[in-house]
């Protein structure tokens, strides 16, 4: 018996709505979970996902992908790349896995919400595969780093990070809880798949893959580009939701969800991907600067997608463009200065040669960021390392949960965007962060950031040791300079050469 062509039966199997008899539609698809926003079941059927895949196609393709990624890993295991990789690159991997692995698993739960509660059958269909994708991503990004736990306890943070109150983990959970764990199915499709995945993950998974290949890390490059092929498919679920919403006069609501998700996603990338691309990746392996990658992926591609869909650029777009020159430099300096509080070893990335590159990519870097780093370098050269470590906490934004930073030195512009709400004083790192709060204060008002918890006495003793214990960071886990400060030698050399 000849099998039917896929095109002849696909649409039939995809049309999985029915009219319920035994329960009401509202019981089957509660608004809180579905987010249909007053649009009928019938109208949601016009949802048309651009990538369509059948189950047999899915399993065949995924099996090939996994065979590829796992066999590259196995083949290269003996190569022991990790043992000879630049320490800055090792830190890149450790930071990546800790920040990402459990978020992937959480995303499978968010996909599952769409699979069950989206009124659009096309969305439910694709979300089943998306759920399996994210399950894959969680597992593979735990399995790969697990090979390295024998090398250092920091590799265990691939699993451990999200189970701790380390400040970066708090920030990541805050983002993902807001964007995908507590949103209705339509909200997930827009905030997770459209804003976060289509907008930003290409940076971490493709931009970084390019750097990884340059750095000689083929296991990691093959892994994350394989992951991203899944992403390209399941990230397409948001666009069709937006089309349906816009057709039914819901543009304002859709725009607001996008605006919140993009700004909050940006903040995570500024603290994770920014330092990785511009400071940890060995100089010779940097294909592009963080700003250049962001401009290529976010501005060029994502901005166009927004306009094509009939949406607007977020109201804060100019501020976003300006911040590309600034925020991640502050996040990097902050993470390095507060390095015992992270689970990886930050590379300073400020040798004279690296500072030349930074000046080229970010004109004015030495007049601003360089002024702060000069003091640090002096302290390291003059036997005062204690001054290169913190004795207090940085002020933390009540939305992004990361430090409030700005340009130092000759361009000093640091600003706290404050808000008094119901008698409590909140602090935000930017106007858009404050705006996100004001969009839905009930949603966010009870959250205690790290500083709030400290001031409330939750961290005991109220000092660095108490803070590290609260964050679950033990000796062997807390960060230190990736290169053991050997890079300072380059300054002594430069002085000698000049003399």
């Amino acid at each position: 018996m000849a099998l039917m062509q896929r095109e002849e039966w696909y649409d039939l199997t995809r049309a999985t709505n029915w009219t319920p008899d035994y329960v009401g539609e509202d019981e089957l698809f509660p608004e809180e979970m579905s987010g249909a926003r007053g649009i009928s079941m019938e109208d949601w059927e016009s949802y048309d996902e651009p990538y369509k895949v059948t189950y047999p196609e899915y399993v065949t393709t995924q099996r090939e992908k996994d065979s590829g990624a796992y066999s590259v890993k196995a083949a290269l295991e003996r190569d022991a790349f990790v043992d000879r990789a630049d320490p800055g690159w090792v830190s890149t991997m450790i930071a990546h896995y800790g920040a990402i692995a459990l978020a992937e698993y959480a995303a499978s739960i968010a996909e599952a919400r769409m699979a069950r509660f989206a009124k659009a059958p096309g969305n439910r269909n694709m979300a089943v595969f998306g759920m399996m994708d994210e399950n894959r991503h969680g597992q593979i990004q735990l399995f790969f780093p697990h090979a390295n736990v024998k090398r250092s306890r920091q590799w265990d943070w691939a699993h451990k990070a999200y189970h701790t109150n380390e400040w970066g983990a708090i920030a990541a959970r805050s983002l993902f809880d807001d964007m995908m764990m507590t949103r209705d199915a339509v909200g997930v499709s827009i905030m997770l798949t459209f804003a976060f995945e289509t907008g930003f993950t290409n940076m971490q998974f493709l931009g970084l893959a390019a750097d990884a290949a340059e750095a000689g890390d083929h296991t990691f490059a093959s892994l994350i580009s394989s992951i991203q092929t899944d992403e390209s498919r399941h990230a397409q679920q948001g666009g069709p939701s937006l089309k349906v919403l816009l057709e039914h006069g819901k543009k304002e609501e859709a725009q607001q969800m996008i605006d919140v998700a993009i700004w909050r996603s940006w903040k995570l990338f500024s603290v994770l991907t920014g330092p990785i691309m511009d400071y940890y990746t060995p100089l010779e392996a940097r294909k592009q600067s963080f700003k250049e990658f962001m401009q290529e992926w976010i501005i060029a591609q994502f901005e166009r997608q927004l306009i094509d869909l009939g949406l607007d650029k977020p109201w804060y777009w100019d501020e976003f463009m300006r911040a590309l020159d600034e925020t991640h430099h502050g996040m990097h300096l902050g993470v390095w200065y507060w390095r015992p509080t992270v689970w990886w070893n930050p590379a300073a990335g400020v040798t004279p040669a690296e500072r030349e590159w930074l000046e080229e990519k970010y004109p004015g870097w030495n007049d601003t960021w360089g002024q702060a780093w000069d003091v640090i370098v002096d302290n390291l050269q003059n036997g005062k390392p204690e001054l290169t470590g913190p004795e207090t906490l940085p002020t933390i934004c009540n939305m992004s949960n990361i430090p409030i930073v700005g340009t130092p030195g000759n361009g000093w512009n640091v600003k706290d965007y404050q808000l008094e709400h119901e008698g409590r004083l909140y602090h935000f790192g930017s106007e858009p962060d404050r705006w996100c709060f004001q969009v839905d204060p009930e949603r966010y008002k009870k959250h205690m950031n790290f500083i709030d918890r400290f001031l409330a006495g939750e961290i005991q003793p109220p000092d660095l040791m108490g803070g590290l214990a609260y964050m679950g960071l033990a000796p062997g886990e807390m960060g230190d300079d990736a290169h053991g400060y050997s890079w300072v030698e380059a300054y002594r050399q430069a002085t000698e050469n000049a003399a």
Partner: protein
Amino acid sequence: MALFPIHSNFERDFVIQLVPVDTEDTMDEVAEKCAHHSIDRRVRRQPGKVLRVRHHEKGTLFPRDMKVSEAGLRPTETLDILFMDE
């Protein structure tokens, strides 16, 4: 005599920091406590300059001898610490 948390936005530094001060501290003493976390860490000294305290949100410069308890500050108020001639 009570502990009072403020946030220090120190001139030429890159980050705002939590600094515990005392309600009986003068603004000069507040500036000194803030300086401990910025000067010689990421900000160079400026000999001949005085450190002054300014309300970040309102922009009001506080008298050097004003006490924290007299300044009408909310807990976790953000203060700018500035290098000035006097």
